[in-house]
């Protein structure tokens, strides 16, 4: 999937395409849904949206950064139910948080390859952290560096991926 928004010239198109390839691979294979890139924009700081944020750090010799998937609880339940092959009503709170962490881990796993190949340096991922609750806040994340914000549609709903990376 190619990046086609008006922000293309301002953002790293290669990175956006890598994110979408990664999301598409995970969602197609493990959730059996087709994600669609709806919008790309830039931000200065991480801003959680929705009820659930799954966050993973990327670190290595070439720099460090983070990726977060933020979405509403209803969509998170739907995605985790798809992952498990069960009805949404069977998804417990701990399933939802764990499942979103696993989805973020898989998306970031493929992104790590992108960073490694681009910089020819090895990167590692942190274990995923999932924070939930309406109006939740996340502290301790990089501030004052550009974030890429992707809005991605899945069926009739949307979620966000926010990504930042600071090279050394």
């Amino acid at each position, binding site marked *: 999937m190619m990046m086609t928004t008006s922000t293309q010239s301002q953002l790293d198109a290669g990175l956006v395409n890598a994110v979408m390839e990664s999301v598409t691979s995970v969602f197609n*294979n493990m959730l059996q849904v087709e994600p669609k890139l709806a919008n790309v924009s830039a931000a200065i700081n991480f801003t959680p949206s929705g009820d659930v944020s799954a966050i993973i750090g990327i670190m290595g010799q070439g720099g460090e950064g983070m990726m977060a998937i933020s979405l509403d609880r209803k969509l998170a339940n739907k995605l985790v139910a798809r*992952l*498990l092959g069960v009805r949404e009503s069977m998804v417990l709170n701990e399933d939802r948080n*764990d499942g979103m962490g696993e989805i973020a*881990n898989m998306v*970031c796993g493929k992104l790590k390859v992108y960073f490694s190949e681009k910089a020819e340096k090895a990167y590692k991922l942190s274990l995923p952290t999932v924070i939930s609750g309406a109006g939740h806040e996340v502290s301790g994340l990089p501030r004052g560096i550009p974030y890429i914000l992707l809005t991605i549609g899945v069926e009739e709903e949307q979620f966000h991926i926010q990504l930042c990376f600071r090279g050394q």
Partner: protein
Amino acid sequence: MVTSPLSPKEPSPEDIASLHLQEGSSSGTARHSHTGNGPMILVVDDSRVMRRLIRTAVETLGFKAIEAEHGGQALELLHIPTIAQDIEAIIIDHNMPVKTGIETIELIKQLPAMALVPIMMVTSETERDIMAKGFALGIQDYLLKPFAYEELLTKITEILTSHAH
């Protein structure tokens, strides 16, 4: 194609018959004769949803699954003789707290009862050195996340079949 993890392409009757026949193989008989547990597959993953997904696949193939949340817990289970003797295969993640998959496999392979038990890594790690370390330690196969559910079924079938031969 849209498929549900709980309505996967079923393994053929021959596949399942082949796997169940393996329970009576020479090594299998020796390791199953002391308990009523029957053949089990040890699933080691810090993610409860991944353990649940893999358990579903294992049970679809007619086996029982026993779960560990991390390598330390897996090693505790494998030190219990009545459990260790029924383990037919181990499916293990790499990126876990306490001990990584590779660190755990290294310790598992030091257990005499586990020397011939096939191990498959299921991980999103794609670095070649991780896989190379795994194969150097004697893993049978690996499965990279994300995977299709049918691929998981096929891989489990393959490691059990190769073990029987």
